[in-house]
């Protein structure tokens, strides 16, 4: 993708759509493997208009991933149990927030 096209995706009319697509693809990748969180961060970061926006996108994706995960647990009847897992709960939250955020900021410096 050329610089102009990328700039158009980042700040043009399709920016929001690109972010939604990146988020959906990221969630699919997240469901498969933990590196999916990194890929998701890269996707939402690459469509960010700035480093600061990339960080916001990464953090936001982490929040969306956690909300989706909590909803899945709630449907499975395990939401309360998850909150009682202590270190595992904190590790999950930290993983969901940190990996996409770091990946988003990283990719924004590369592409």
């Amino acid at each position, binding site marked *: 993708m050329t610089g102009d096209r990328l700039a158009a995706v980042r700040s043009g009319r399709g920016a929001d759509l690109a972010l939604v697509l990146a988020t959906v693809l990221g969630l699919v990748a997240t469901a498969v493997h*933990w590196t999916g969180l990194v890929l998701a961060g890269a996707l939402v970061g690459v469509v960010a208009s700035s*480093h600061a926006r990339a960080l916001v996108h990464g953090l936001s994706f982490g929040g969306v991933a956690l909300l989706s995960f909590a909803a899945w647990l709630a449907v*499975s009847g395990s939401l309360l149990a998850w909150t009682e897992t202590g270190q595992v709960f904190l590790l*999950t939250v930290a993983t969901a927030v940190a990996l996409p955020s770091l*990946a988003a900021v990283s990719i924004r*410096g*590369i592409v």
Partner: protein
Amino acid sequence: MSSPVGRAASLVAVALLLAAGALGGTYFGMAAPFSGDVYDTVTQGAETVESPYGSATVTYDRWGVPHVSAENERALYFAVGYVQARDRLFQMDLQRRLIGGRLSAVVGERALESDRFHRSLDFEGAAEASWERVRESAAGPSLSAFADGVNHYAETRPLPPEYALLDVEFEAWTPVDSLLVGKQIAWSLSGSFTDLRRATVRSRLGEEALALYPDRLDHETPIIRGESDAAAFDPNDTVAPSDASSAAVAGTGGETDGGAGTDADFAGLYDRLEPYDTRPGVGSNSWVVSGDHTASGKPALANDPHLSLTVPGVWYEMHLRTDGMETRGVAFPGIPYVVIGRTADVAWGFTNVGGDFTDLYTYETRNGSYRYGDEFRAFDTRVESIRVKEGDGYRTVNHTVRKTVHGPVVRRAGRQVAVAWPGFSATNESLGAYRLNHAAEINDVERAARIWDVPAQNLVAATRDGETLYVAAGKYPIRRTDGRVVRGDRLFDGSAKEGEWAGYTPYGNSSWRGFVPFEAVPRVENPDYLATANQRTMDDPPFYVGTGETYADPYRGQRIYERLDRRAASDEPMDAAFSRSVQRDVRSVAAEAFTGYALAATDEMSPSTREYAATLDGWNYSMRADSEAALVYRLWIEAFRNETFGDEFAAAGLDDDYYPKLSVLHGLPADSEWYDDRSTPARETRADVAARAMATARERIEREGYETYGDYNRLDLNHPFQRAFLDYPERPMDGSLFTVFNFWNGPSTQHGSSMRMVVAFGEESNLVLPGGNSGVFWSDHYHDQLGLWVTGRYRTVTMATPEREPTIVFESAPASTEVDG
């Protein structure tokens, strides 16, 4: 174009990301949302599974109990293996690792001592011998199919979260593993180092201290209160060890290198072995009632085994059905059969025979050999490697396993003994359980009891047709020294061939020809009603069974018989509701016996202490969580025991594990020298000690801020993994070690009713577990029965399968599928 700040931020982020990936990949793989290994078992939905043995269905009910139905037995047990793995895989794995001495590979250094002990006793060799014996029996195919089912689950479905948390792999399950689990249960119920404890007390406190350990506890409520229906028997008529005539060969006078006489001090060795000795809280209740005493005219049976309370619980409930067989009840995870439960027409229950089934042998040793008769023999020695988890890797520790002609050797601090236990031989308990699962009449129970070897069990049974049975099933060794029959309550000089068992081959096939024949073991045919609570089997058995040390204190047995006798004398039936009420009974006969000692000592107490003692006045001896009197009594009796024996025993370097039975303490005269405090010039009596103990109890209550018994007597069951979220919720508890409603909060473990079951053929049957049927933390059935169990409530259980779609459908695999075993 990125700004310099942005580029710097990106560089930092890249560096952090790479570092996180390198250092934290394992943790992300474990706990990442959705894909983390610990979340693999969050959803356990409907499944279709290929089975090499034929079709089967599994329908879970609302309590997570699997109802398994199959077209043939192998298909049934393949499905049973699959569902046990689905619900309890990690627990099964941990159990086989524990008894096989392979726990360090999972949990590291802290299990090394346990692994050394279990390797020394070579339970794995014993399980292999059992497998060689039963593989060609009717039980063999079911054990193989079960193992295949376990492995099929582990290969095709997510492993429980514990595997991710520990970062360990599952190794294939084998039929030997199922038998290994059986050995673990058998050892925990009948393996004992009591003889070492007794020898140590004698060497430290003198011969007179042995009066604290009488051959027979002073009570009049044995299991069999009338006559046994066993055949007449004289142990002198049994076969003696073939070469016993050479038993009395004198020692060679050679230099010894670790051998010891039977009168040596074994405290160092016992201290090492004490964690693996039979636990003080292990006991059980059962009773069987004939149709003459029920409203329906059909028999009823109740059973609640008192075992370690664990997370998950020791029992797994299941309902199995195939052509010619239907059974429901509880199994130990890893064992394919219902161990306690019922078929359509027969119910059975077990409690432990409090007998003596372990003998220990000392030797004269020289240059790594031991003397046996008139020759020195080399120890049968094998060096094994124990893998110990350490960080991300393992280290290997070599351990030497030594055996003599009598059995495996345990050693420490320059002391060693060989251990003889029927369970080291090839045993049949799996075939016995298999037969019980097929029982249609009382003769089928007899067939199972006849081959039952370890652990010896008080088997009670009832049939829909109205028959009842009690038999103390098991293998009872006859010991001989110099050809004479001797008791087993002492260490034996193995070099002089003392106390040998004829017909016993450790790690091989025993003929049992020198053991008590089945026809002669205590039994009652068609008892009106009969109760067992690990107390003395009968008053004057024709052969040595056990001692006051191996049998339980009489209190539970007395209380159960008190309730049954009173009911039998009334017009009220002993129906299921009555049996449930007896299982809930919290009246302590021990408290009834001892409270008078405290109340008689109030003159010796300070006014503030006397106030606490006053709570016992008029108390109904009910060990209820909301009772202040129960709290005072419990802390007082603990202090009373310590105040009585602590000075003498502590001075001899012996802790409270060596204290005698509570009923022995009760029988001491008021001026017994054991009441005297050696550190004072005065001569204390029972009243002095009782008053002092009450002061100790008062101080403890005030210091800890206890208000009622439930503040102290708390259920606190923790997962072995030591992660708080895996633990069960803490609860205040009714009951004590000496109440029928049994619960004991020991310093390191907790014991109590590991399940409660009532089967009444003419009406409803009940069961409840101390937790839940699933060992999977995410499951709704992880501890969904805990509240029922704590409060003495039950579930109704039937032989009906829930009318809903099966959760798991097993379909016949294509014929080309290879079947192992």
